[in-house]
């Protein structure tokens, strides 16, 4: 299966670990993610105002790029991109008058009718590949690894956009179980990490992430699995700041679900780019015999 893929800004730099591991792991399952030849920033956050049409143009243009590739689907890895692109498309479908105005504005591009479905890789794994097939591809089951999945906000909310039940999602759990991991359910898995406040209100993020990680640890998790580069930055890099704010806090590694797939599929360790992690996961993985 070939599918156009939209990376978004961060996957090319700080979240290269997400991109590389995802592309490699998907390939094992017969999914070829082909990067759009031309793409632009999605805007990272969906505009919540009713009178800001300009902010819809960025995401819509990316959807047109998928259309240009002859596809009516576009796959994403980053939760923020997924949310922004999918909501923009939803907006575009719902409002005919605004749709017409956006089409008129984009004079070079083809008219867009709202007919590209934005999907997240997790949806493809669940709905098209199936967890049985994932399980069959596992060569090195993550036996004994206690993983707490973390969804954050943008994969789940609002309901019309979410890839799963917005309060009780299970897709990542099912995937991790297929990979052989021990899944730790945590009530904070849908709580926000503090998001963009990380820029000028680091303290807010520190409090949010501290709650999330200590809850996961309290339930016995050794590692957190997620899918968003912003969540990843806050949960992983901000642990240094948490240590300063909260005495006695124990750090823990944070991995993208795709990295865990790559490990379980026994792919070359280089696709995981563990060196990009702030909290090095390798000692834990080694102790579990999952990497050399």
């Amino acid at each position, binding site marked *: 299966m070939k599918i156009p893929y939209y990376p978004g800004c961060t996957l090319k730099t700080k979240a290269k670990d997400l991109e590389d591991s995802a592309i490699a792991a998907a390939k094992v399952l017969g999914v070829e993610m082909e990067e759009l030849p031309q793409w632009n920033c999605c805007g990272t956050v969906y505009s919540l105002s009713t009178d800001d049409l300009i902010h819809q143009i960025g995401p819509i243009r990316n959807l047109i790029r998928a259309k240009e590739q002859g596809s009516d689907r576009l796959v994403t890895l980053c939760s923020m991109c997924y949310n922004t692109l999918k909501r923009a498309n939803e907006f575009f479908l719902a409002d005919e008058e605004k749709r017409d105005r956006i089409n008129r504005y984009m004079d070079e591009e083809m008219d867009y009718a709202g007919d590209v479905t934005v999907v997240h890789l997790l949806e493809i794994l669940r709905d098209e590949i199936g967890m049985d097939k994932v399980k069959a591809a596992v060569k090195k089951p993550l036996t004994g690894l206690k993983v707490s999945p973390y969804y954050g906000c943008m994969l789940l909310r609002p309901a019309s956009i979410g890839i799963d039940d917005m309060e009780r999602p299970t897709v990542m759990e099912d995937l991790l179980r297929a990979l052989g991991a021990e899944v730790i359910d945590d009530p904070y898995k849908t709580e926000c990490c503090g998001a963009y406040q990380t820029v000028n209100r680091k303290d*807010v993020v520190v409090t949010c992430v501290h709650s999330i990680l200590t809850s996961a640890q309290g339930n016995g998790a050794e590692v957190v699995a997620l899918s968003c580069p912003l969540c990843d930055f806050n949960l992983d890099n901000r642990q240094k700041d948490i240590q300063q704010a909260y005495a006695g806090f124990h750090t823990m590694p944070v991995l993208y679900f795709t990295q865990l797939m790559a490990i379980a599929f026994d792919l070359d360790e280089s696709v995981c780019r563990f060196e990009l992690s702030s909290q090095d996961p390798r000692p834990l993985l080694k102790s579990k015999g999952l990497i050399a």
Partner: protein
Amino acid sequence: MKIRLSRDRVRGEFVKRVEMISGQDLLQCYQCGKCSAGCPAAFEMDILPSHVIRLAQMGQGEELAKANSYWICLSCQTCTVRCPRGVDIAKIMEALRLVTLRQKNRNKVEATALPMELLVELPQIAIVSNLRKMSG
């Protein structure tokens, strides 16, 4: 503090603008507080989300101008998806940000003022989203 209510207040320019930008009917809110109860950033807000809407219902623009709540808001949508009356509170928070940001020189964060080490440390996704929320 005392609030003086009149028609010019509760149906004033401020209320109209917030409702227009957000596309939400403020009076749909019946003050159950569920948004505040679940807000993950509320610990840092000086006025909780339900009180923000309450003040907006009463047309208290000046009071709200002083609040930090909507600058702390994470746009995580937890409030929105749990609101029993279907009020998109995140949109109201966005509208309150925009009411300020759309005034000249009222950016909360200036891109040019961000220190270099921060720009190096942070992923793009953080910088772009922050500027989208904090500047006009």
